[in-house]
């Protein structure tokens, strides 16, 4: 095992070797090595988070035909650091009558719920936290902790806006969790596993976006709703309830809510790429280099790992960019529309998609891979077509009804 072929294992072996040489017991040295690895991974996530603040501000500026931060550092790149310094030195205000312990616990828990997701995010075939065999449910469980943090923040603030924002946010998050969980079942069925590593490896030949494009669409919609971003940002409708559940938070505590929202959005982009875009899979890239038919370009392991990591981060950034794109081009929807859209449209649709996928999934072992892909793709298109037809028929009926009502009203006015 050399550095060039397996860098992560090499480094961890080297580090624990040094620690044992210092006289630490072997298990303790291993735990310490893992601990350092985790700290590095989380630090990477946090650095990415700081970078995302800049990306978000720059992209929103471009969407709104502005330049965005451009004063501090090249292209305003140092701007987020200035933001952080500002947040840290700001006075931290706890409102009167707040439930102090719960109030202070909430931002930590919100950040923790997002950081925990990085434990299972497979950045490349060699760089990943842990290969958990229930990873997809773990994703949902971490989301549940985040919801609990929102409830704690909204309740402990002793503020009506915070409480109302919390109710809206929780209603939003829990409603859209149903289609999200149902869609998580689709890669589970196709890969016959809940582990993100196996799901990524199962997409070596075909990304699941070709097998289930409708699944990706529903996943992205419910991910945006889970994040509480526009068009589902009723929790912080400025004209109604100001900032929502974190209205009373200031300084770094507010900073954590903001940072965890951004990192959460990026992480969801990452999971979209794992579930539907093959995660770290790069076309033609195998463990030892590129294979174009008979032409083989051999690469050392470390280059392969880095290319995979780069591919994963780009795919995740693409998912994040789609979330931003939706956020900055859609108006906010009303709460009744939001709930009706979920319970009357998205949930039934995702259940239909799940049933069809489960039935057709039986063909996976019977058909050739390309035929199976074709069958799945066509079935998805058929479901989309039927849904649109049903919606059009419904809209036509609504329109006729409305015409009848306006006609009757016009007649009444004449008489």
């Amino acid at each position: 095992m050399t550095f060039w072929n397996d860098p992560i294992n090499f480094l961890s072996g080297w580090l624990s070797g040094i620690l044992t040489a210092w006289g630490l017991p072997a298990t303790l040295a291993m735990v310490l090595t893992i601990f350092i690895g985790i700290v590095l991974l989380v630090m990477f996530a946090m650095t990415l988070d700081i970078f995302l603040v800049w990306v978000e501000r720059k992209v929103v500026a471009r969407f709104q035909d502005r330049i965005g931060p451009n004063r501090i550092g090249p292209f305003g790149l140092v701007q987020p650091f200035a933001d952080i310094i500002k947040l840290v030195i700001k006075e931290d205000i706890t409102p009167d009558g707040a439930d102090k312990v719960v109030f202070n616990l909430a931002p930590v828990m919100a950040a923790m719920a997002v950081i925990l997701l990085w434990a299972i995010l497979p950045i490349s075939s060699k760089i990943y936290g842990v290969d958990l065999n229930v990873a997809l449910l773990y994703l949902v469980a971490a989301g549940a902790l985040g919801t609990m943090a929102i409830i704690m923040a909204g309740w402990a603030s002793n503020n009506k806006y915070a409480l109302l924002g919390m109710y809206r946010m929780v209603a939003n998050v829990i409603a859209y969790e149903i289609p999200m969980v149902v869609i998580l079942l689709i890669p589970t069925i196709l890969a016959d596993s809940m582990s993100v590593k196996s799901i990524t490896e199962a997409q070596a030949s075909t990304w699941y976006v070709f097998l289930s494009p409708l699944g990706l669409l529903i996943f992205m919609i419910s991910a945006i709703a889970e994040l509480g971003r526009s068009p589902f940002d009723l929790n912080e409708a400025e004209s109604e309830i100001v900032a929502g559940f974190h209205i009373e938070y200031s300084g770094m505590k507010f900073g954590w809510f903001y940072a965890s929202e951004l990192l959460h959005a990026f992480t969801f982009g990452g999971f979209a790429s794992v579930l539907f875009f093959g995660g770290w899979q790069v076309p033609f890239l195998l463990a030892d280099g590129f294979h174009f038919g008979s032409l083989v370009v051999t690469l050392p392991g470390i280059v392969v790992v880095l290319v995979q990591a780069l591919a994963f981060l780009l795919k995740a950034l693409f998912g994040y960019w789609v979330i931003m794109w939706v956020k900055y081009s859609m108006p906010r929807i009303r709460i009744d529309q939001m709930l009706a859209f979920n319970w009357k449209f998205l949930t039934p649709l995702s259940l239909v998609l799940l049933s069809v996928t489960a039935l057709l999934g039986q063909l996976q072992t019977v058909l050739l891979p390309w035929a199976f892909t074709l069958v799945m793709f066509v079935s998805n298109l058929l479901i989309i077509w039927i849904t649109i037809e049903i919606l059009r028929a419904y809209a036509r009926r609504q329109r006729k009804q409305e015409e009848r009502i306006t006609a009757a009203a016009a007649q009444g006015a004449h008489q």
Partner: protein
Amino acid sequence: MPAEQIVFLLCAALILVSAVMVVTVRNLVHAALWLVAALFGVAVLYAVLSANFLAVVQIVVYIGAIAILFLFAVMLTRRDLVVRTPGMRGSWWIAAVLALLVLGGLVFLIVNQPGVNRTALAIPAGVDTLHALGNALVSSGQYLLPFEVSSILLLAALVGAVYLAVSRKS
């Protein structure tokens, strides 16, 4: 002391302390939050027992759904709490004695059971408990009937709860 025992003891302390807080704290929102802590401890315990699926389901179902419902119910009926805040009954010590008697009886039964101090064997290498659980739940010879019946139970619960919760215009 092996690491597993330390984890178990920490976890047991978390569960028991939170459980005591759940049944004694006056503020019901705090009681529900302590319940979340206790349930989290139980999830860690499932992880210690290598029941991965149950560990995550414990968090998804209990913390992600049941605890939220409890908190909402407490907030919906809070007028009562603010005005009168009834804590425990005056005769709480009878209940305490009763609970201790039950505990004593159970512990007596447990420690006198033969083979109760056994330690667990490693799970055989070829056994994938996750797939095994799935197969057990859908094979007709095993738990298919309870599995389907539980869905009917949940349907009945939904119908009943919705019927009760709707304010009827009467």
